[in-house]
Each structure stands twice: as structure tokens, then as C-alpha cells.
């Protein structure tokens, strides 16, 4: 009798195991969402005293006041650094925008049903207003009065002067933006407690835009001073790990490495207490698990999902996938200094040979637009489909046949961390075989890919670019100006360089449009890249969460979210 019962139990276990095997699920990679550029109207003669961008929170019903409002977000990884000067990774930017305030922000507009930041305009945050002087170099900036750090210390002109001084003296994105985009090399002069004068070395249409990034966050000079050392006078080591005395809507209250980060709303934030009392980041590395937990309502938002995960969420009850057109550009770089791509005819042939529709349909599942040229669709000066290439196999074969291509194998390199790039590479390989080009796909680890790409040593590579400031000068000077760090395809065209140089000083919108249209046509003819697609930005959250806005840099501002209704 005992034996029989035991046998039944073991059989039952076996059946359960088999059932579990059948009801299985698979995970996939976790491509980071990338951000978008947007065209900038030069803020010439801007005098702005617009209303605060923060909306005052509505009075909550009494019963709601008793219940703590918590937003739980599933993120793929931990925060790399909390120092605004030197953040290069998306988790760091997301955290910084919660605990620190920035000087300016883009106003919110509706676009194709999504709420997006209007890249053409700026609204004040801790800058209350600014005036550009007639010399085009000097700016008088008024800092908003009445703002304080968490401990009540006022945020004033000295805070801003210190922020710029620190950025100029720490090697990070903040220094790069100031010196390469705003052409500011000296800290501003404090005129009075809330007024400064900032002087740039050259005209730039993006002086104020450069303050929209998290690198311009208001940090407390006293915290930096208290933690500075002889070797580290700007306390970068300390600031990377701590966010003391925040200026933003939340304070960071606890952090368990690779597990959880907890933020708590500030009552004394100048824009009003944020809608959620606490925001908890749960670090969940597996994208499949983030999907499962979002479906189950355990987390309210899932960050860093890829195409496979969004497909898996289709039709999930209580889950909303927010979509917004992005200016993120997916492209194939062809190294203009390495054969066979040192021959413009080969680059053009490849541009005609790629099956763009196949990539849009099968890689991005329709959630992307075609990219036609160096300035993405949606940017003010973009020529859209007026330039660029569509697939024409016969023409590609003809051009390739008459080019200097010797039939050798070409290496197409991809970053192993980007699942979608692998899919693109396979499709490009198949399409180019049709025109007589043999492609070998090389998958590289992210640091190796970054090193070889930056060293301009890759023959051909799949990459993405989202310019955080939507301005043609920013975009082109970052990627296609001769000799610049980010010109991974080593492209060079003297006239394009000249246009970029002229563009910095050109203040007339019509004239700027004209010269950058010429640049787009020249670049299209030179075909340094294969311009593939602009994948949409997508974000998955529970339906009871509201207020998501896609800003031009595509960095989510979790502090702006609120319970729906």
C-alpha cells in the first residue's frame, strides 16, 4: 500500500515536471532605449519669463492622503554614477533627473497622440529667464528665487556659477557640452544674488539648449567642498556615489546594489510635492521577467525592453505601451578611409542594395520610420525623402560593377549587446549578396566595438545615434565633420565642414535651413552611411500610470509621472 502511494506521488511529480516544460517561456536581449534629436530654433533675443513648467499638484481626497502612493519601476541595471558632470549611461541620467533640477526644459506638446517635449522651444526651470545680448556672445541669466536644496540652502547665482565652473574642470559630458556646443570656457560672473552674466567665446545657437542636460544639474557647492580632497578637488569620487542635499523633486533614501533604489518625494521642492510619495527602482536584469512582473502588476513600469518583449506585451490586460516617433537614427557606417568604401561608388551601390522595407517590417515590426539622410525626419531642416536611396538592385549591381570593388569579403561589425543590430546585419548580408558583395558578420563585445569604432578601425558597422540636441550643427559636428571624435565612418567633405562652421554663427533661420539642406544633399551623394530607420520610442507601463513625456533625449523623467485619473 505504501509502495503504491509512493509510486503515484512520484508519477504525479513527473507529470508536473513535464507540464512545466511545456508551459515554458523564453527571454531575449535588452536593448536600451535610445534618445532623439530635435531641431532647434536659435534662441536669439530670447527673453523668457514663462510660467513654471511644474503643475501644482491637485488637492488629494482625504482617504488618498492616508495611503502612500508608490511607483515601482523595473530597470535592467544599477545606477553607474550620481555625479552630473560625468554621466554617460542612461540609468545615471534617469536618477539624476529625479534628484537634481536642471536650468531649462522643453515644453510639452502632443504629437501623433503622444506627449513629447517640443525640441524647438525651451521653458525655464531653475533659470527664470535669460537675455541674449546683441553681440550674440553674452547672456544675462536670472535664477529663479525661492528655490532651495533639501536642507533649505537657497539655490542662487553662485550655485549656477559653481555648476559651470565644476563642469569646466571635470572631464565629462558637461565639459564637452560647454566647450564644444556652447563655446563657454569660463565660468559666468555673478552680478547679484540671482543674476549672472555668461559669455561664450563664439556664437552658438545652442547655448541655452546645452543647459537642458542632466550635466547642468544644481548640486550643492557645500557638499562638494566638504568632500573634496587634494587629489580630487571637485569631489568626483564622492559625488559619483552620493546624492546629498538634492535640488530636484525626490531625494535618494536607500540603495541596495544591483537590487533596489528608493526615492522619496520632497515636500519642500519649489515645483510642489511630486505625485508619488516614493518611487522604487527594482533592478531586474531579465527582460522577460520585467515583462512578467509588469503583466502581474508587481511593477508599474518596465524599462529597457526590446522588440520581442513589446510583442509579448501585446494585448496584456492593464498594460499600456506608449509609442512616440523618435529621431533615433539606425544606420550602417561605411569607413570612408578603408577599401572598398574609400570609393564613393561602392558606398552608393550598397545604399541602393539594402532592402529597407525588409528591415522596417521584420526587424522593427513596423514600429519605425524610414531614415533618408543625415538629419532625421521631424527635425526642422530635414529634407526627409527628398534625399537618400531606395532599394534598386539592378542599379546597385551596375554601380558596383563599374566601381573599384574587387569582390573581396567585407566585414560588417556589430555590438553583441544590441539584439536588433544582429537582425539588421543578417538582412543586410542577404541583400548585398544579391548585388555581388560578400559580407562577413563580426560580433564584438561592447567595449571592443566601442574602441574599434572610435578608433575608426571598423570597415562597416551597424550603429545608432540619437542627438540629444535637435540642431543640425550639433548633429553634424558630432558625427560627420572631418576629424571629429564621433565621425566613426571617417567621412570628410570640405564643403560640409564649411557649412558646419558657418552654421554656428548663422542666426537667420531661413539661411540656416538653406545651408543645411545643401549639406544633406552633399552627404546623401557621398553616402558615408546607409541610412536605415528611425525606430519609434516605446515604453511599457500599467494603465493606471499617467504623465509620460518623450523628451528629445528620450530619457524618461519619472518624477513627472502621476496616478491616472
Amino acid at each position, binding site marked *: 500500500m505504501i509502495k503504491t502511494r509512493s509510486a503515484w506521488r*512520484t508519477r504525479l511529480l513527473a507529470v508536473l515536471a513535464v507540464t512545466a516544460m511545456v508551459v*515554458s517561456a523564453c527571454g531575449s536581449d535588452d536593448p536600451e532605449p535610445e534618445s532623439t534629436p530635435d531641431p532647434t530654433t536659435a534662441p536669439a533675443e530670447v527673453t523668457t519669463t514663462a510660467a513654471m513648467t511644474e503643475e501644482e499638484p491637485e488637492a488629494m481626497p482625504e482617504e488618498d492622503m492616508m495611503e502612500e502612493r508608490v511607483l515601482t519601476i523595473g530597470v535592467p541595471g544599477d545606477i553607474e554614477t550620481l555625479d552630473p558632470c560625468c554621466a554617460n549611461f542612461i540609468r545615471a541620467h534617469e536618477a539624476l533627473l529625479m534628484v537634481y533640477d536642471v536650468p531649462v526644459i522643453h515644453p510639452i506638446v502632443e504629437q501623433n497622440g503622444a506627449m513629447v517635449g517640443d525640441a524647438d522651444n525651451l521653458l525655464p526651470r531653475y533659470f527664470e529667464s535669460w537675455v541674449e545680448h546683441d553681440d550674440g556672445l553674452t547672456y544675462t541669466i536670472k535664477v529663479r528665487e525661492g528655490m532651495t536644496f533639501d536642507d533649505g540652502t537657497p539655490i542662487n547665482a553662485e550655485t549656477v556659477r559653481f555648476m559651470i565652473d565644476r563642469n569646466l574642470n571635470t572631464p565629462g559630458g558637461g565639459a564637452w557640452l560647454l566647450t564644444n556646443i556652447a563655446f563657454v570656457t569660463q565660468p559666468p560672473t555673478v552680478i547679484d544674488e540671482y543674476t549672472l552674466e555668461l559669455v561664450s567665446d563664439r556664437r552658438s545657437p545652442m547655448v541655452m539648449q546645452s543647459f537642458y542636460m542632466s550635466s547642468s544639474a544644481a548640486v550643492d557647492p557645500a557638499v562638494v567642498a566638504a568632500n573634496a580632497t587634494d587629489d580630487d578637488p571637485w569631489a568626483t569620487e564622492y559625488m*559619483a556615489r552620493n546624492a546629498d542635499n538634492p535640488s530636484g523633486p525626490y531625494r535618494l533614501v536607500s540603495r541596495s*546594489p544591483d537590487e533596489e533604489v528608493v526615492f522619496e518625494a520632497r515636500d519642500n521642492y519649489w515645483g510642489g510635492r511630486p505625485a508619488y510619495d516614493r518611487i522604487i527602482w527594482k533592478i531586474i536584469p531579465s527582460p522577460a*521577467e520585467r515583462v*512578467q512582473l509588469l503583466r502581474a502588476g508587481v511593477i508599474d513600469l518596465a524599462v529597457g525592453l526590446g522588440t520581442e518583449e513589446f510583442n509579448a506585451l501585446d494585448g496584456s490586460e492593464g498594460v499600456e505601451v506608449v509609442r512616440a516617433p523618435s529621431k533615433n537614427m539606425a544606420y550602417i557606417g561605411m569607413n570612408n578611409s578603408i577599401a572598398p568604401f574609400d570609393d564613393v561608388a561602392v558606398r552608393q551601390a550598397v545604399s541602393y542594395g539594402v532592402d529597407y522595407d525588409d528591415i522596417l517590417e521584420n526587424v522593427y515590426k513596423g514600429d519605425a520610420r524610414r531614415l533618408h539622410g543625415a538629419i532625421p525626419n521631424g527635425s526642422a531642416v530635414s529634407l526627409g525623402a527628398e534625399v537618400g536611396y531606395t532599394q534598386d538592385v539592378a542599379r546597385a549591381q551596375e554601380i558596383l560593377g563599374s566601381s573599384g570593388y574587387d569582390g573581396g569579403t567585407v566585414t560588417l561589425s556589430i555590438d553583441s549587446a544590441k539584439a536588433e543590430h544582429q537582425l539588421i546585419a543578417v538582412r543586410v548580408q542577404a541583400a548585398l549578396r544579391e548585388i555581388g558583395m560578400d559580407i562577413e558578420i563580426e560580433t564584438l563585445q561592447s567595449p571592443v566595438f*566601442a574602441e574599434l569604432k572610435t578608433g575608426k578601425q571598423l570597415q562597416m558597422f551597424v550603429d545608432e545615434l540619437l542627438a540629444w540636441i535637435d540642431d543640425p550643427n550639433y548633429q553634424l559636428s558630432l558625427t560627420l565633420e572631418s576629424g571629429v*571624435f564621433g565621425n566613426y565612418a571617417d567621412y570628410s567633405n570640405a564643403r560640409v565642414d564649411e557649412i558646419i562652421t558657418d552654421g554656428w554663427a548663422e542666426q537667420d533661420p531661413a539661411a540656416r535651413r538653406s545651408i543645411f539642406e545643401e549639406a544633406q544633399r552633399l552627404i546623401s551623394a557621398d553616402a558615408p552611411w546607409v541610412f536605415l530607420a528611425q525606430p519609434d520610442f516605446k515604453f511599457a507601463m500599467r494603465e493606471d500610470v499617467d504623465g509620460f513625456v518623450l523628451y528629445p533625449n528620450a530619457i524618461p523623467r519619472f518624477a513627472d509621472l502621476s496616478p491616472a485619473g
Partner: protein
Amino acid sequence: MHLAVYVLRRLAYMLVALFGVSLVAFVVTRVLPGNPAYMIVGVMADESTVAAVTERLGLDLPIHEQYFRYIRQLLSGDLGDSWRTRNPVTTDIGARWPATIELGSAALILALAWSVPLGIVSALRRRSFSDRLANAISGFGVSIPEFFLGMILLLVFFATLEWAPPALGRTLGDVPPHTTGLYTVDAILAGDREAFKAAAVQMILPAATLAVTVGAPLVRVTRGFMRKTMASHHIRSARALGVPERSIVLRHALPNVLLPVSTMGAIMYGYLLGGTVLVEFVFARPGIGKYAIDSISESDFAPVLAAVLLSALSYLVVYLVMDILHFVIDPRTRT
């Protein structure tokens, strides 16, 4: 041989082994391409920034100088800094290794609990249903990838049956006061039942996942040695002398089987303490395996080297303990 001499000799071997591991791991991380400076600076940079970061990381020095510098650091107890987390590696490991030790220990206890009895029973009842079941389960455990099994368990027990809690780290309750860093142990020490329950519940599925995959080879080893022992002369003699079967199994056969099984268990424990990357990944547990993999993927050399050394040290210490135990209980090892 005296036990102290034996232990000293084994410790000397350990040091040599660790030195070899550090050398190989260091050379491999430095020779392979991938300067992390390019990832650190991002796109908004220039060559001079890359050069400055490379210099700060010491990657501009000749490789032998880098290694000597590393060994000097190591001897002073400094494992270097992680550029990814901006922390000393010792701090990072101190925060993560307890999670790995706790999970690995729980998984080993579970694995021993099911695999050794099943291995013994299947050895004693050849071609019975239990033998075939042991075969099937051990085959399943050996062949199924850990991450896949973990996902199945989550899908069934969390998403479908709603019996298990969500895979959200080490506890969904309060973190007990820090004593050992092992939440379950700390909760017991603090007398906090709720904290213990919250930490233990959170560990059931990942520990079960590992117990299946780690227990599978243990079943096979137990069964194999048990069969061999049961066919040996001294067991046949005992049987001929009329010793009861229960006594034959428990008093005469089992002690012989436990030696190889404990060795296999030690190998498994060493593996578990070195980090169970995929299970930590699926169950969002902040352990040493995930830390190592994240560091490898971003060429964060100091944590990678530390994780390799820690893994090697785990194996060596566990082996040492097992060897000492064998030395004490098995007279043959003393010659």
C-alpha cells in the same frame, strides 16, 4: 603524517594555485581587446579625454608593470576599484557575496536532501520505477539550462499558480540587522520571524532551480558508488554472516559512499559559491555571478579579476576542508 603538516602543505599549494589563477586571469583580461576608457567617456568626448581616462586606469603602462602593481595591491588587501560602480571592489563584493553564499548553501542542502536518498534507493532497487525515475530526473537536471528551468518555475509557480512571490531580489520584507549579511541567518540572530520568512520565501525558487541542476550529478555519483559498494566483498561477507539488510546499507555501505559523494558535493559547493550567474539573472538576485558578468561585458577588469580569484578561492577552500575531513576519517589518506 601529522595533520598540521598536511594542512600547511595544502595551504602552500593553494597560494601557488591562486598566483597561477591571478596571472592567467590578468593576462587574459589585458591581452584581449577592449579598452574600457572608450565606454567610460561616451560619445561626448575627444581623444585627450580617452587618453586621460586610460592613464587614470593605469592601462597605458606595460602589462608586466600593471601586473606587479596589481599584485602589490592584492597583497595589501586592495582588489582595486570598479569603474562601473565607482566603488572599491572589496566593498562591492562585500555587498554581493553574502547573497551568493546564502543561495548556494540553501541550494546545496536541498540538492543533498533529494539526490543522495534517491541515488541510494535507485542503486538498491535496480530497474525499479524509482531507478528509472532517478535516471529521468538526473538526466533532466543535467541537460536543462538553469535559466530555462528558473523561468519555467517562475511561470508556473508565480505567474500561473501564484504560489511563489515575484522574483525581486533577496527579500520583499524588512532587511534584518546586518550581522553576517545572510538575511536568513541575520533574521534568526535578530529573532525576527517575519524577516526570516520573507528572505526564505524569496529563496525557494532559485534554490530549487539550482538544487535540480546540482543534484542531478550527485544522484548519479551516489547511485554509481552505492552499486559498486553493494557488490563489494565486504558487503557480500556481511550478507553471508546474516547481517540485516538495513544495517548493511546504513552501517557498512553508506560510509564508503559518502566519501566520493562529499567530494562531489564539495565540487558543487565550490561552483555555487563562485556565483550562479544565470539564476541570479533570472531571479534578480544581486550576487557575485551577476556582478562578474556585468563587469566582463563592460571590460571592468578589477571586479572580473576579483571574481575569478574569489571563485578559485572558494573551490580551494572547500577542497581543503574536504581533504582535512577525509584526512581525519579515512586512514588511507594519511600515508
